[in-house]
C-alpha cells in the first residue's frame, strides 16, 4: 500500500482503571487509504483503545498525534473536531428523523429563512449517491430502513463531516452476507477517498477480505503490527490467544455422527407445528443425546421454529409430544416446567437482565419455575452458581458483578448456565456464538458437545454453517419459513451440501 505518513499515531498508550491496567503501552498507526483492523480477544483492549482514540477515556500515559499535531482529547467533541468519526455497533442516529436529515444533521444548508430543507435533502442525495446509496429516499424516515442500511447511512454521515479517520466497531455483527458486501463496497469507496478506516470484527473471513493492516493486542498489551496479506490465519489466531497453532487445530475437527437407534423414543416430537407469518407447519423429532442443527439464512425461520418449540411465540397449529405425552406449550413458563429451555439470539433485549448480578441471572429461571414464594435455599444457590461458573469458565469469576459489565462471550456463558440450572431435557441454543471471541466460542462449542454426550437433546441454531456442520448429528435446513430438508450429518455432508440444498430448492417460490 501507500507508504506515506500515517494520519494517526498513538504511542505507548496506557489506561488504568482501579486495580487493572486496561492498556499498557500500546502503539497504533493508521495510514490514509488503508483499512486497519484491531485484533484480539474480548478483554484484549480493543474497545478501550477505540475509546482512547475517540476521547471517551483519558489516557494516563502515551501520546496521540493526528496529522503530525499532538492532541489531548478531553471528550468526544475534541476527537470529532480532529476529524475522527465513529460508527458504533448500535447506530447512534435519530431514528425518527428522515434519512437526509440524519446525513446532514448539523450541516444543514441554510437559506435566508433558516434551514432550506429542499437543498439540504438535495445535498444529502449527493452524498448518498457518492456512497452508492442512491436508491435510498432522503425524505424517508430512518426507521423505515433496515439496521444494516442505517449503518451505511451513518457512514455516509461521517463523510459529510469530512472525517479523516472512520472507526467501525463491530459493524457486521448483526448483518447477513449480502449486507456485509454492501458495507464493504462502501468501505472501499471511503478508503479510496483517502480516509483511514479502523475496523473491528470477530469474523476472520471478513478481516482477510477487507483489511490491509492488522494490529494485534492481547491482555491490554501490544503484540504486533502486521500486513494482512503476509499473515496466515493460524499465525494470527495464535498471536491473538497466545497458544500455538497445533493446540488450536484440535477444536476444529468435525464430530462423529451419533446414529439414532431403532428403539429410541424422541424427547420431543412435533407434527405440523406452525404459526402464521412465523413458520409453516413443521414436523420434527429430537432425541436425547442428539445435536440438531438448524441451518438457513436470516429470515429462513430457524429462530422462529426455536421460539415455537419454547412457547416464546404461541403455536397456532400442530401437536406437541413430550416423551410421548401430549402437551401444549404456550409460554416460556410452561416450557421450562416441561424442561425445555431456549437461549435467545437476541442476548441484549431478550437474554440478559442487565442490572442484575451474574448470580441472579443464573438463578432466575430456576426460581421462576419453582415459584416466587419458594426461594432457592442459599446453600443450594451457592452450589449451582459455583458449579456452572466453573464448568463454563465465566470470567471474571465474581458472581456479584452486574452481568451488563461482562463481555459478550461471558454473558453468553452465564445465559447457558441459567438454562442448565433448570436441568433441561431439551436445550435450544440460538446463535450462542454470535459476536463473541474465538476462545469463548470454542468453549461454548465444546460445552454443546459435552451436554449432548451427557444425554441432553440440543438444538443448535447458527448463521455460521461451518459450526452447524461441525457440531450437529442431524441438520434441519430451512428456507423461506419452511423446513426444506433433513440431512443426516455424516462425513459426506459439508457446508457446500447445505448451500446447494438451499440454492436448488424452489418450492417456497412456487407456493
Amino acid at each position, binding site marked *: 500500500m501507500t507508504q506515506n505518513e500515517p494520519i494517526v499515531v498513538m504511542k505507548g498508550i496506557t489506561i488504568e482503571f482501579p486495580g487493572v491496567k486496561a492498556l499498557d503501552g500500546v502503539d497504533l498507526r493508521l495510514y490514509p487509504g488503508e483499512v486497519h483492523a484491531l485484533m484480539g480477544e474480548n478483554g484484549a483492549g480493543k474497545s478501550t483503545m477505540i475509546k482512547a482514540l475517540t476521547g471517551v477515556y483519558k489516557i494516563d500515559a502515551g501520546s496521540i498525534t493526528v496529522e503530525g499535531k499532538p492532541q489531548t482529547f478531553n471528550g468526544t467533541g475534541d476527537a470529532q473536531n480532529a476529524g475522527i468519526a465513529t460508527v458504533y455497533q448500535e447506530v447512534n442516529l435519530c431514528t425518527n428523523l428522515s434519512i437526509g436529515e440524519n446525513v446532514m444533521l448539523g450541516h444543514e444548508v441554510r437559506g435566508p429563512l433558516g434551514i432550506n430543507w429542499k437543498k439540504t435533502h438535495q445535498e444529502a442525495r449527493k452524498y448518498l449517491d457518492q456512497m452508492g446509496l442512491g436508491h435510498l429516499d432522503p425524505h424517508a424516515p430512518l426507521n423505515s430502513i433496515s439496521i444494516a442500511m442505517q449503518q451505511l447511512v451513518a457512514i455516509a454521515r461521517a463523510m459529510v463531516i469530512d472525517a479523516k479517520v472512520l472507526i467501525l466497531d463491530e459493524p457486521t455483527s448483526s448483518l447477513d452476507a449480502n449486507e456485509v458486501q454492501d458495507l464493504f463496497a462502501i468501505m472501499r469507496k471511503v478508503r479510496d477517498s483517502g480516509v483511514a478506516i479502523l475496523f473491528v470484527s470477530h469474523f476472520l473471513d471478513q478481516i482477510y477480505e477487507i483489511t490491509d493492516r492488522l494490529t494485534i493486542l492481547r491482555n491490554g498489551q501490544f503484540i504486533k503490527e502486521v500486513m494482512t496479506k503476509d499473515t496466515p490465519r493460524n499465525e494470527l489466531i495464535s498471536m491473538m490467544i497466545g497458544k500455538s497453532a497445533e493446540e488450536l487445530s484440535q477444536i476444529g475437527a468435525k464430530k462423529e455422527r451419533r446414529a439414532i437407534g431403532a428403539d429410541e423414543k424422541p424427547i420431543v416430537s412435533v407434527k405440523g407445528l406452525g404459526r402464521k407469518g412465523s413458520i409453516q407447519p413443521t414436523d420434527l423429532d429430537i432425541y436425547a443425546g442428539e445435536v440438531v442443527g438448524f441451518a438457513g439464512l436470516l429470515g429462513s425461520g430457524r429462530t422462529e421454529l426455536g421460539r415455537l418449540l419454547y412457547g416464546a411465540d404461541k403455536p397456532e397449529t400442530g401437536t406437541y409430544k413430550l416423551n410421548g405425552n401430549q402437551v401444549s406449550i404456550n409460554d416460556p413458563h410452561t416450557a421450562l416446567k416441561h424442561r425445555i429451555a431456549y437461549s435467545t439470539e437476541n442476548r441484549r433485549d431478550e437474554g440478559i437482565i442487565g442490572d442484575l448480578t451474574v448470580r441472579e441471572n443464573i438463578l*432466575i429461571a430456576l426460581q421462576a419455575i419453582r415459584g416466587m414464594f419458594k426461594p432457592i435455599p442459599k446453600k443450594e444457590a451457592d452450589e449451582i452458581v459455583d458449579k456452572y461458573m466453573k464448568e463454563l469458565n465465566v470470567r471474571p469469576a465474581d458472581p456479584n458483578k452486574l452481568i451488563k459489565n461482562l463481555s459478550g462471550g461471558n454473558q453468553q456463558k452465564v445465559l447457558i448456565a441459567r438454562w442448565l440450572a433448570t436441568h433441561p431435557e431439551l436445550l435450544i441454543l440460538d446463535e450462542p456464538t454470535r459476536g463473541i471471541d474465538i476462545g469463548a466460542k470454542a468453549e461454548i462449542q465444546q460445552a454443546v458437545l459435552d451436554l449432548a454426550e451427557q444425554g441432553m437433546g440440543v438444538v443448535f441454531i447458527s448463521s455460521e454453517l461451518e459450526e452447524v456442520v461441525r457440531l450437529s448429528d442431524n441438520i434441519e435446513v430451512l428456507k423461506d419459513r419452511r423446513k426444506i430438508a433433513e440431512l443426516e450429518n455424516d462425513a459426506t455432508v459439508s457446508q457446500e451440501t447445505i448451500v446447494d440444498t438451499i440454492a436448488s430448492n424452489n418450492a417456497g417460490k412456487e407456493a
Partner: protein
Amino acid sequence: MAGHNTKKDAGNPILKRLLSSNLTWSVVALIVLIVICTIFDHGFLSLSWNENTGGLAGPLITMLQESARYLMIATGMTLVISTSGIDLSVGSVMAVAGAAAMQFLVSGLNVWLAILLSLLVGLVLGCINGALVSMLGLQPFITTLIMMLAGRGLAKVITAGQNTDAGSVAGSEPLRWMANGFILGIPANFVIAIIIVCLVGLLCRKTAMGMMIESVGINQEASRMTGIKPKKILFLVYAVSGLLAAIAGLFATASVMRVDVVKTGQDLEMYAILAVVIGGTSLLGGKFSLSGSAIGAVLIAMIRKTIITLGIDSAATPAFFAVVVIVICVMQAPKIHSLSAEIKRKRALKSEAKAVTA
C-alpha cells in the same frame, strides 16, 4: 510513601461507597434539617412525657407521626416504580379509603369491620390499576392518572360531597389509636408503618419477589423468557400499592377522625415519588431500595416540619420544598461525585508534581 498509599487505599473504598450511596446523603440531609431546626428553635429536640396521650411529645414525635403515611405510600410506590411504572393514584386512594372508613363508622359499622372494608376498597382500586396495566397493557401513567381523578370523585360520592366527621362515633377508639396512640411512648402509626415496611422488605428479599420485580423493571421481555410471568408481577405491585395507600388513608383520616374529600391525600403522590427518588430507586425501573425510600419518606416529613418550625411564609413553602429536594438530588448525582473525585485527583497530581520537582 508506599505505606501512606496503602493506608489511603484501604480507607477510601468504604468512604467512597458511603459517599456514593443515596442513603448516606438522605441521612445527612435529615441531620442537617434537624440541626437547622434546633438552631432556630432550641426546644426542637426536647422530648417530654405527655400524660394526656400516654406517649412522648415533642416536635420530633409529631414529625414521625406525620411520616407514617408517607412511609406507606412510598413503599408501594417503590415497588411500582421498580417495574418501571408509576402510581399517581395513591393520594386519591387514600381519600377513598379514608372516606369509606369514616362513612362506615358514621353508618354504625363495627370499627374493625370498617377498617377491614376500607383496606379492601384500597386493595380493589389497586387491583383495577394492576389489571388495566398488566392485562390490557395500558400505560401506567395514564391508567393511574385516570384512577387519581376517578378516585377523588369516588370519595365525594361515598360521603355525598361532605367532609364526613366520625369524631363523635362511639367505639371508634381502635382506629383513633392507630393514628394518634403510642406504643412504648413512640407514635403507634409510625411503629405500625415501620413494621409494615419491614414485612414488605422481608417479603421482597427473603422470597424471590424482589428479584422478580426488579427483573421485570429492567427488561420485561427477557424476564418473560426466563419463565417469569410479568403480568402477574405488575398486577401484584399495583395491588400492594393500593393496599398500602389505603393504610396511609386511614392514618391521615383517623388522625382527626374526619375525611376531607378534597384535601386528604392531595399531592401526596408527588411526595411519594420524591421519597422514592431520594431513596435511590431510578424512575426507569430496576433495582429498588425500600430502606432508601423509607428514609426518603421521613425526610419529606422532616422538610414539612422544617417549614412549620422556621415559620416560612405560606406563599414560599412550595419553593422552599423544591429547593431542599433539588439540593438533595444534586448531592446524590453521580456527576457531582465524579467531579469531586476529579478535583481530588488533580490535587493529588499537583502535589505529586511538586514533590518530584522538590
